[in-house]
């Protein structure tokens, strides 16, 4: 008996599929992640209880989630923007690191009052991040050099640069740890409580730093640019139909440079906000792959900046909950990495079901019937 899959390309995606996909994806990833937990003799219900319920119901957990979400959302935008133009920026990690390095250099070497120093740090970070993202963007726009490979390779260059600087010219503090000198108070982001009217009365705001405002501003800016401006429209147009956009007289070069430069600047903001807001000094391992986590974040939220924010918050919960699970059950925090990978895996699987309607045909005669013209490739 031959079993043959029948694939029909869909013209429209049914609403339940469009809205259900992110939720189902996450649930499926958690379910398979549970299998890994069972393999280590940990009850997945208990573990996920610690991971999500305790994180989301405790003051400490919620604070940590908001703090972690800042670099994740900003790096997510750095992947999301080029994705809208049909480009892949898988080097957000490098842009984040380079921005953080530039911002740290200013923080450690310039003495100014906080009002001037903090903007200068963030500006330096933006310039460095945009520059790092600008290299693959320029090579792609000008010469058609594949931006995937170049942005990725530049990430590894950034990691080595970071390692060099923190062991050498930028090494500060006692001991030989690869880290910078501690930031002065003027270079430290204040907690939200003092900045927002009535902030003192909101318990969460005592420990969440002002970087959250930066992230919110970036999301709002991205949303406005993408939905309300001509440039945002051009980005979407180039992303959906490169050739038609060219015919309409739109400049691919401008669009490519715009999405990468802005994205790189956002990733850099995430890096320096994390350091100036919660770390207090540049430590070598301060960003545990935020820039790579940005890829599933941008994929989950590929439709809008608001969804990127939600996805960023979800991964922040995973990170925070992951460390709680590590402490409570002795399970390696790599569980978070596995769940991340599974989210991507199920997400790209569901993309297939969005594009094709799948049916199964049984050929009971058992002979090799000629493949149907519209679904002939389906046997693989």
């Amino acid at each position, binding site marked *: 008996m031959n079993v043959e899959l029948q694939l029909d*390309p869909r013209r429209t995606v049914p609403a339940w599929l469009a809205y259900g996909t992110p939720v189902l994806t996450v649930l499926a990833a958690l379910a398979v992640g549970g299998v*890994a937990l069972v*393999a*280590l003799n940990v009850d997945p219900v208990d573990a996920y209880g610690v991971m999500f319920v305790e994180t989301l119901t405790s003051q400490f957990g919620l604070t940590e989630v908001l703090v972690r979400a800042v670099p994740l959302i900003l790096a997510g935008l750095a992947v999301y923007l080029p994705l809208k133009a049909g480009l*892949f920026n*898988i080097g957000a990690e490098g842009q984040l690191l380079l921005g953080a390095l530039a911002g740290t250099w200013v923080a450690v070497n310039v003495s100014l009052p906080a009002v001037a120093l903090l903007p200068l740090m963030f500006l330096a970070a933006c310039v460095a991040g945009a520059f790092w993202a600008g290299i693959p963007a320029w*090579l792609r726009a000008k*010469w*058609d*050099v*594949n931006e*995937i*490979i*170049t942005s*990725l*390779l*530049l990430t*590894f*260059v950034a990691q*080595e*640069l970071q*390692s*060099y600087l923190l*062991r*050498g010219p930028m090494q500060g503090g006692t001991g030989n740890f690869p880290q910078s000198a501690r930031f002065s108070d003027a270079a430290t982001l204040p907690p939200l409580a003092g900045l927002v009217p009535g902030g003192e009365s909101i318990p969460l705001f005592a420990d969440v730093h002002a970087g959250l405002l930066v992230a919110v501003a970036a999301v709002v800016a991205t949303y406005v640019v993408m939905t309300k401006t001509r440039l945002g429209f051009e980005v979407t147009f180039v992303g959906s139909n490169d050739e038609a956009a060219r015919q309409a007289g739109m400049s691919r070069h401008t669009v490519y440079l715009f999405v990468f430069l802005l994205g790189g600047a956002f990733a850099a903001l995430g890096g320096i906000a994390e350091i100036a807001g919660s770390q207090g000094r540049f430590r070598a391992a301060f960003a545990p792959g935020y820039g*790579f986590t940005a*890829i599933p974040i941008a*994929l989950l939220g590929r439709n809008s900046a608001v969804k990127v924010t939600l996805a960023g918050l979800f991964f922040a919960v995973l990170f925070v909950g992951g460390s709680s699970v590590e402490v409570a059950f002795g*399970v*390696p925090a*790599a*569980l*978070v*990495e*596995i*769940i*991340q*990978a*599974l989210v*991507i*895996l199920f997400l*790209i*699987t569901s*993309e*297939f079901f969005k*594009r094709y309607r799948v049916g199964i045909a049984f050929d009971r005669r058992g002979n090799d019937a000629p493949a149907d*013209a*519209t*679904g*002939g*490739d389906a*046997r*693989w």
Partner: protein
Amino acid sequence: MVSFAAGLLNATVQAATVLLLAGLGELISERAGVLNLGVEGMMLVGALGGFVVTAVTGNYWLGFGVGIACGMALAAVHAFLCISLKSNQVISGVMLTLLGTGLTTFFGSGWVQESITGFPQMTFPIVGRYLVHLPLVGEAFFRSTATDYLALLAVPVVWFFLYRSNLGLEIIAVGEDPEMADTMGVPVFKFRYLAVIIGGGFAGAAGAHLSLAFSQLWVPGMTVGRGWIAVALVVFAQWRPSRMLVGAYLFGLLDALQLRSQSLSLALDPNAPLAGVLNPLVNTLMNPQIMSTYPYLTTIAVLSYAVIRTESVRLAVPSALLQSYNREMD
């Protein structure tokens, strides 16, 4: 100086083997039109799988085989997603690396303290007995682990497979023009699966070599970016096995130099002209971390140069790389 050079060469051979195996696998996969950014993940899975089996059974050849199989299994996931489900190859590859890193860190945490007896150093069969006494190159090339010899042997084998066997030529055809290949009766989907899975086997072998011969222990994330270098190396080698050999040894040399750069002093006499400028510059350029950026920067330069000067440098990038094949007539 001679002993320094001989030691450096020895370290180069060892560092090059990992890159050579992983790079050849990625080359085969990309020749069929499938970019696999999961090399790092497949290597780690191969390294842990091979290590665990060797630790349990004490048989390192069995461990090596299981390492290869683990790499193949992970590559099969990529093949299914990219070929059958026509998913984006970049996303799927990144997923594979995340998955491999996560799974091996998660399940490998208990194996960190284990010790094994891995591949021993051996002289090359038959002729090695005489050639090992050659100055400089003797020890490096003729007293090594079996996996080092296998990696070197793999270069002509892959070359012969790709350019002289029917199957290899058909795999190249599938990567250049799948429609045409399909018209000629080449089973595009089957051969792409085959190439990706063979590529995964090579990555698994590279990982198993790392844990069974190179370091003889398991540490989470022990590939430290070598998988990404292998991806870069394919671009550097312009999709040709012979240049892969050159590239792997060049990058291996950088790797070995980087570890030994402290013991190498290139400082000018402080009174010499320009010493004040040149010495700090040379110091910075010879810094181990700065040296680690060279492979990546070189690859970006080679890629850009080759793309910009396409008329004078024939870049053998497979035309259908990154494109999923749709057999529909729409």
